[in-house]
C-alpha cells in the first residue's frame, strides 16, 4: 500500500527533481485533456480527444514568432524556468515556504510580461492578475504556516512522512486552499486575467500579445504548475498515498465542476471574498491549532 511512498524514498533529491521535470508535463497535459473533455460533456458537446492539448502545444511551437516588444518572451522564459524550479524543489522534498516564494517569483514574471507589451487588454489582464495574486497569496502562506504548526517542519519531505492525517488538523485551511485553488487553476468564477474560453471581455487578457511558441510555453508552464498545486493538495492526505492521490484527482474534477457552474466574478468580489474566506477559514484554524499546542 505504501509502495508509492517507498519508491519516492528510494530516490535521491536530483532523481526526484528529474522525475518531476519529465513526468509533470504528461500528467498536466492529460489533466488538461480530461478538463476539456469533461467541460464539453457538461455543456452537452462531444469535446476534443484527450490528447488534444498536446497537439495544440506542438502546433503552437511551429507557429511564426510574432512579438510586440523584443523582450516580452524573456519574461515567459523566466516564468517557465521558475515554475519548474519551484515544482522540482517541492517534489524533491525541500522547504515548502521556499517553493511558495519561488512560485510567486514566477508569477511576478508572468505579470511583468503582461505589463511590458503595453497593450490595453494585456495591461488590464496583468492588473487583474496582480489582484488575483494578492487574493490568493495570504492563503498559500497560511497553508504552510498551518502545516508547520502541526508537524513542526516546513520541509515537504517531513510533511509527507507525517503519520497522522493533516486534514484532521487543518480542515479550515484546506477549505481556504480549495477556494484559492480555483484562482490558481484559472477557473471560473476567478478566471479574470485570462480565460481558457475564447473571447472574454478583455480579449485574451494577459496573454493577448503572446502567440506561437511563447503561448505554448505558457500552456506547458500551466501544466507544471497544476501538478505542483495538486501536490500541495496531496500533502493534506499524505498519511495514505492512495487516498491522497484519489483526493488530488477529485479536487481537480471538483474545480472543473465549479468552473462549469459559475459565471465570472468581478475583481472586487474576487479580491474581497478570497481575503475574507482566508480570514475566516484560515485564521480560525491557525488560532485553534495554537491553543491545541
Amino acid at each position, binding site marked *: 500500500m505504501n509502495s508509492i511512498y517507498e519508491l519516492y524514498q528510494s530516490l535521491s533529491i536530483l532523481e526526484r527533481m528529474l522525475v518531476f521535470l519529465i513526468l509533470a508535463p504528461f500528467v498536466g497535459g492529460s489533466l488538461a485533456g480530461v478538463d476539456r473533455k469533461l467541460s464539453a460533456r457538461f455543456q452537452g458537446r462531444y469535446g476534443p480527444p484527450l490528447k488534444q492539448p498536446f497537439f495544440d502545444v506542438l502546433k503552437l511551437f511551429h507557429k*511564426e*514568432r*510574432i*512579438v*510586440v*516588444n*523584443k*523582450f516580452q*518572451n*524573456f519574461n515567459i522564459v523566466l516564468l517557465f*524556468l521558475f515554475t519548474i*524550479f519551484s515544482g522540482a*524543489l517541492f517534489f524533491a522534498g*525541500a*522547504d515548502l*515556504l*521556499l517553493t511558495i*516564494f*519561488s512560485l*510567486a*517569483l514566477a508569477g*511576478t514574471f508572468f*505579470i*511583468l510580461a*503582461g*505589463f*511590458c*507589451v*503595453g*497593450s*490595453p*487588454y*494585456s*495591461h488590464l489582464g*496583468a*492588473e487583474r492578475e*496582480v*489582484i488575483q*495574486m*494578492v*487574493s490568493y*497569496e*495570504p*492563503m498559500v*502562506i*497560511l497553508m504552510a*504556516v498551518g502545516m*508547520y504548526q502541526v508537524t513542526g517542519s*516546513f520541509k515537504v519531505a517531513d510533511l509527507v512522512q507525517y503519520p497522522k492525517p493533516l486534514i484532521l488538523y487543518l480542515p479550515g485551511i484546506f477549505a481556504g486552499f480549495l477556494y484559492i485553488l480555483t484562482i490558481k487553476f484559472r477557473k471560473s468564477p476567478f478566471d479574470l486575467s485570462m480565460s481558457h474560453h475564447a473571447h472574454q471581455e478583455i*480579449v485574451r487578457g494577459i496573454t*493577448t500579445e503572446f502567440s506561437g511558441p511563447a503561448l505554448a510555453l505558457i500552456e506547458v508552464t500551466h501544466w507544471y504548475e497544476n501538478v505542483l498545486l495538486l501536490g500541495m493538495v496531496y500533502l493534506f492526505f499524505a498519511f495514505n498515498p492512495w487516498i491522497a492521490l484519489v483526493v488530488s484527482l477529485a479536487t481537480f474534477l471538483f474545480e472543473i465542476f465549479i468552473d462549469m457552474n459559475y459565471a465570472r466574478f468581478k475583481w472586487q468580489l474576487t*479580491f*474581497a471574498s478570497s*481575503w475574507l474566506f482566508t480570514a475566516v477559514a*484560515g*485564521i480560525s484554524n*491557525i*488560532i485553534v*491549532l*495554537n491553543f491545541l499546542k
Partner: protein
Amino acid sequence: MSALIFLILFPLFIAGLALVLPLGNALRRTIGVIANIVLAVVPIYLLVTYLNQGPTYFRVESHVVNMFMLAVEVLIAAFIVYISLRAKQYLPVLLVVVQSLIMVIFEFTVGRAMEVEHSLFVDKFSIIMALIVGIIGSAICLYAIGYMSEYHEHHQEVKDRRRYFVFLIYLFLSAMFGIVFSNNLIWLYFFWEITTICSALLIGYRNDKPSIESLFRALKMNLLGGVVFAIGLVYLYTSSHTMELDKLIQLDKSYALLPAVCMAFAGLVKSAQFPFSSWLTGAMVAPTPVSALLHSSTMVKAGVYIILRVAPVMENTVAAKMLMLIGGVSFLITALIAISQSNAKKVLAYSTISNLGLIVACAGINTSAAMWSALLLIIFHAVAKSLLFLCVGIVEYKLESRDIEDMDYLIMRLPKLTAVMMIGMAGMFLAPFGMIISKFVTLKAFVDTNPGMAIILAYGSAATVFFWVKWMGKIMSIKHGVTEVMEHRVSRWEWVTLYILAVSTVVVCLAFPLISSGIINPYLTELFGKTPAPDTFNVMIIFVIMLGLLILLPAGLFYFAFVNKNYKRVGTYLGGGNIDHITFEGAMASTQTIELKNYYLEKYFGEDRLFIIGVLISLTLVFVMFGVSFL
C-alpha cells in the same frame, strides 16, 4: 577608540568646512569627495579591527564632555524656542522647555555625582550601523553635489542655502555615529536630540508653507519622544544609579523596564511607526537627498537601533508584546495604504514604515531568529531604499512629476536609470533578493512564537507585492515608435552614486551568507548564547536562485536584444485598425485613443480611513505598553 572618536568628530569638522568654503569651489568639491571616501573607509577599518572581538568598551572622562553637551543642548533649545515662536508654534516650545529643564535640573542635582564607567563602546551591531551610515550616507552626499545644483535651477524661488544644507547633513552623520557608539546614555540622548533638530531643519529647507508645516510636525513628534527619553533616563538613574547601556540591559527588570519602554517609545517616534507615521510622509517635501538619508541610513534606523538595543530588557513582558503588535500594525496598514498611492515618494515612504514595522515586530519577539532577520532587514532596506529614492529624485526632474502614472515608457526614456531602479525594486520585493530572505526568516521566527503575527505577515507581504509589481510594470512597458532619451542630462555625481548603490544591492544579496556567518551570527551568540541554526540547504537554494538570476538576466537580455533575430514585430492589438501605437480606428470610423492606468483600489485602501485606524489601534497599544511597565 580613536577610530570611534574620529568618526564622530570628522563629519563635524567637514560640516564646519562646508559652512565656510564658498560654493562652486573646486577645493570644496575635492574635500567633499575625499571626506566621503574617508567616511566610507573608516567603518570598514573598524569592521576588520573589531570583527574577532566581543563588545569593546572605552573609558572617557565624561564630566567635561557632559557639561559641554548640556551647554549645546541649551543652545539648541533656545534656537528651537526662537524658530517656533517665530512660526507661532507653541507646542514645540513647551516640549523643548520641559525637556531642557529635566536635563539641566538632573545634571546639577543628582547628576553631579554620576560616575560613568564606559562612555563609548563598539560591538558588531554598532559596526553594521556604522557601515550603513558611512557608506550609504556618504554615497548620498556625493549624489547631493550634483542634485542640489539642479534643484536650485528648478526651484528658483527657493533661497540657495546649500552651505547650510551640507552643514546639516554632515552634522547629522556625526550624530548618527555618536548614537551607535555611545554607551553613556546621556551622550546617546545628546546625539539623539541632534538628529531630531537636524532632520527637522533639513525637512524645512524649502522654507515655504508646506515645508514649515512638515518641519514642525517632525519636530513636535520627535521632541515628544525626546521628553519621554529624558524622563526614562532620570527614572533610571534615580532608581538604580546606572547611566550605561550595557548595565541597563543587565539590570533587574523591575528597575529597567520603564526606562527601556521610554527609550523604545522614543525609537518608535524616530522610526515613524504608528501613531507617529505622519512626520515621515510629510518629510517628502524636502530635497531628495534628505529623504534618502532619513529613510535609509539615518533617522529611522536610529529609531530601530535603539529599540533593538533595549529589546532584551523587555523580554517576555506584556510591553514586548505591545511593541510587537505596534510593529505588526504599522507593517500591515502602511503596506495596504501604499497600494492606494500614486505619488512615488509617498509609496516609498509607506514602504519604509512598513519594513521598519517588521523590524520593530522582530524586536518585540526578541528571539535569536527574530533578531537575525531584523539585522538583515536593516541592511537590505538601507541599500535598496536609498537607491530607489535617489532614482525617483532624478526621474522627478526629468519628467517634471513624481507621479507613478506619469512614468509610462520610462524604460525607453531613461533606460539605464530604469534598469538601476528595477534593481532597487527587485531588492525590495522579489524573491530571492534581500527583503524576501528576511521575510522568509521572519515568518519562521513568527510561527514559532506567535502565529498571529504570521497572519499579519501573510496579508502584508501580499500587499507589498501589489504596489511594487504594478509600479515595476508601469516603468517597463514599451510602446512603438521613437521616444526622446533624456538620460544625458543626468550628472555624473548622480550616476556614480547610483552605480555604487546598485552594485551594493546586488553584492549585499549575494554576500548574505557571509554577512550572516561573519557578523550577525557571532553577534547573536554574544547576545543569546546561541545562534539560530541556519538551514544550509535552504541557504544554498536561495543562493542558486540568486546566481541563476544574475546569470540569466544579463544573458537573456543580451540574447533578446542582439542575438535573437527570428521574430516579426507588430503593433499591439487595440480592438480596431491601428493608427499609431496609442490611437486606433474604432466603430463608425471614430478615432479612439488608449491610455493605460494602474489600479489603486482607493475604496479598499484609502489613506484617510486606514491611517486613522492605524493611529487609533497603535495609540491604544502604546498606552497599554506604558501602563503595564508602571505596574
